[in-house]
């Protein structure tokens, strides 16, 4: 069922060979008969919609999940990794999709976990620190390795995870959506690194939803759909439209963004107004106003304070000066629940820690915000819940066998959609999205932007922080540029372009 398009004549035997691999979870056939081969020195893109089985393939490959059937050969030897540590020892180094580090350990401890150097049988932290600094330098990070990991933003944590994967002597490197929250600079740095490793003969599997990245770095592409391998192609020979139709089963034309009008209707009055809102050591005071129908983007480099702006605007962090108004309400003294009741919504950046409640079902996760704003004593009836959830599952094409499955068992992108849906069903007056399309496939990306635009046309205001400038340019009416925790400028209307934003950041 899978047709192989081999690259340049196979001279050497493949570095990694996967043959007829299958895996099922209760109710889901996540992988069925997947086969592929990777040579050393090859960068392979692994593409597919959310829930196509990419992460599962990687986890089966590295022994996190036992496989139902199939063979895996590394350097011609059949391997059967018992767990991730075993896979590492076999020479497969992996960065899994969510940031999977230990939040309570320091950056240094995370980087050297299981690979510490010893003096007289005891770990030498001096050596560890030197090594940690070297690893961080490889990914271009200059941070204090002794600080606890979770004091750093999710993007930095992502880079630390990549640095860690480089610390092992591996033949294969697997990166599952490593660029989801990275900025262009970091991505460039990562790609340089990948090229270097490629030159050293390492085989790399790279999962992403950004087609630009696929075309700029990979040699070949394997597409998965519904757990089946659709095919492997040479990157240079595959057009974007073909690629998308392989992935989605639709053609690219349907997905092409409609021309966007950057102009704002001036006559509308402010929905959200931040007057001189700031917090010491957190965010410099700033002014911002969003009218109904406005889409305001927040751009900036890593650690520039985008997330902080979102948190202050939402009220999950209380400012120590200034006033926040939503419509006729002053939110400064409001509890989050009151704020939500009068129309606030916030989709946080760190989906694992701040977004999903992993144990609860998709349905419960989705209605949580609406239910919380109504209070516990006026429950949404089960049939209403099912109606709302069913509708959202349809509209956002959320891939789940049923709505009572624990959300933790969904694929990353589908979790993100559920969190988005959670806020959409509250019909917020103002929605704040921090990296909303993290890990979402292009088909869904398109749908979501469409939905957001519609909502704004109906009068919702939107504040979006995103490291994807392309995305901001695509739909924002205004872009706030952040730098070093203060607002440096606000781009309006026709001034919005990727170059303009980059220029402002650099200035």
């Amino acid at each position, binding site marked *: 069922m899978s047709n192989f398009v081999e690259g340049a004549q196979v001279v050497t035997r493949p570095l990694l060979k996967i043959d007829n691999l299958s895996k099922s979870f209760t109710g889901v056939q996540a992988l069925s008969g997947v086969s592929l081969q990777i040579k050393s020195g090859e960068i392979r893109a692994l593409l597919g919609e959310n829930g196509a089985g990419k992460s599962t393939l990687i986890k089966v490959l590295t022994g*996190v999940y036992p496989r139902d059937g199939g063979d895996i050969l590394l350097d011609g030897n059949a391997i059967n990794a018992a*767990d*991730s*540590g*075993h*896979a*590492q020892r076999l020479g497969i180094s*992996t960065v*899994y999709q969510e940031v*999977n*580090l*230990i*939040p*309570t*350990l*320091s950056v240094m*401890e*995370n980087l050297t*976990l*299981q690979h*510490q150097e010893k003096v007289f*049988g*005891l*770990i030498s932290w001096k050596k560890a620190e030197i090594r940690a600094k070297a690893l961080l330098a490889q990914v271009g990070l200059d941070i204090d390795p*002794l*600080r*606890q990991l979770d004091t750093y933003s999710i993007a930095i944590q992502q880079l630390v995870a990549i640095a*860690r994967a480089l610390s092992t002597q591996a033949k294969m490197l697997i990166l599952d959506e490593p660029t989801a929250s990275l900025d262009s600079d970091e991505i460039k740095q990562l790609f340089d690194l990948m090229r270097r490793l490629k030159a050293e003969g390492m085989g790399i599997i790279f999962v992403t939803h950004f087609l630009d990245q696929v075309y700029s770095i990979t040699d070949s592409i394997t597409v998965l759909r519904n757990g089946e391998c659709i095919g492997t192609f040479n990157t240079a020979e595959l057009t974007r439209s073909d690629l998308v139709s392989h992935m989605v089963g639709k053609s690219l034309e349907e997905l092409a963004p409609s021309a966007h009008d950057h102009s704002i209707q001036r006559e509308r009055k402010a929905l959200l107004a931040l007057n001189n809102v700031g917090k010491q*050591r957190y965010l410099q005071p700033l002014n911002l106003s969003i009218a109904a129908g406005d889409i305001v983007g927040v751009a900036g480099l890593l650690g520039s304070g985008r997330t902080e702006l979102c948190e202050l605007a939402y009220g999950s962090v209380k400012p120590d000066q200034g006033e926040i108004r939503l419509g006729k309400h002053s939110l400064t003294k409001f509890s989050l629940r009151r704020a939500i009741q009068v129309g606030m919504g916030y989709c946080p950046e760190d989906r694992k820690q701040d977004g999903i409640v992993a144990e609860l079902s998709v349905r419960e996760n989705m209605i949580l915000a609406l239910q919380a704003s109504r209070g516990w004593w006026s429950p949404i009836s089960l049939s209403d819940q099912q109606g709302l959830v069913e509708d959202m599952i349809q509209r956002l094409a959320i891939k789940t066998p049923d709505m009572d499955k624990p959300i933790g068992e969904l694929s990353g992108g589908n979790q993100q959609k559920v969190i988005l849906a959670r806020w959409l069903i509250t019909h917020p007056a103002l929605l704040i999205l921090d990296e909303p399309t993290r890990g979402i496939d292009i088909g869904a990306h398109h749908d979501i932007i469409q939905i957001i635009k519609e909502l704004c046309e109906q009068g919702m205001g939107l504040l979006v922080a995103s490291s994807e400038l392309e995305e901001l340019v695509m739909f924002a009416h205004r872009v706030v540029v952040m730098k070093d925790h203060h607002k440096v400028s606000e781009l309006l209307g026709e001034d919005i372009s990727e170059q303009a934003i980059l220029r402002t950041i650099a200035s």
Partner: protein
Amino acid sequence: MINERNLPILATLLVFILLYGFGVYEYRGFRDTLVFTNLLTDNAFLIITAIGMTFVILSGGIDLSVGSMIAFIGVLMAYMISSMGLHPAFAIGIALLVGVFFGTIMGVIIAFFEIQAFIVTLAGMFLFRGLAYLINLDAVPISHPFIMALSDIYVPLPGRGGLTFIAMAMLVLLVIGILVARRTRFGMSVYALGGDSHSAALLGVPVGKTIIKIYALSGFYSAMSGVIFAIYTGSAYPLAAVGVELDAIAAVVIGGTLLTGGVGYVFGTFLGAMIQGIIQTLITFDGSLNSWWTKLAVGGLLLFFILLQKGIVVWVKKRAAG
């Protein structure tokens, strides 16, 4: 610059010093070194148990069986020495092996059958106490010259105080505990497991093996504590050390370790146990509290010092920030 992660320990240390200062100021005889060395000797078995417990709690688990293990090991030792005529050194060796064995079994059940540590060790708590009853219902003396000799070892310090064998053994085990926690791969695996067991598995930490080792280690430390308790009292008693598991947990937590795992230090546990000991000592020195006021005072002081410790941490953080 104070490292933020050491803050709870420093706060605990400060609380301990404040308490000690209060005792010296308030009570006759408190300034004597004897009071301090008594603290070391009298709390040795609790500290040893709590060190093992620290590893368990750091990994996000809990071990309720330690108190019963102390009693069981004591009774077992007495049986081997008195009834089987084994040499105490030999008996101690076997007793420690038995402790490690039972710890390992609990670890296997927790790791392999994925049953929560709380109930597995609760069953262990019943089981060990029950086994102790089966060996011997009554309290029996362990009168062997070797044990006597151990309990007579005494290194005098200035003043009336001095280090007993028990205190020194405890200090050695403390140092070993600190090194294992911070300077071995196993120790770091324990921290990783407690921080996020799911991620730890993905980072290549051998989760199952580490869990088994953790409970084996806790078994070793509580068996060691049983041996120390037997030497301390020169006897074995199946009802010994009832409720010690809670004291040990409290010591660990007062020492700054998070019960959810991943954060904390073995040395903090030592301080936590010493704070509990000194509360007891202060109450005894005072000697005017009746039975129910004693309980209220123990609870109240515990609360007071936890709040004080929290206050110090918050205050320092504020100072550092502002």
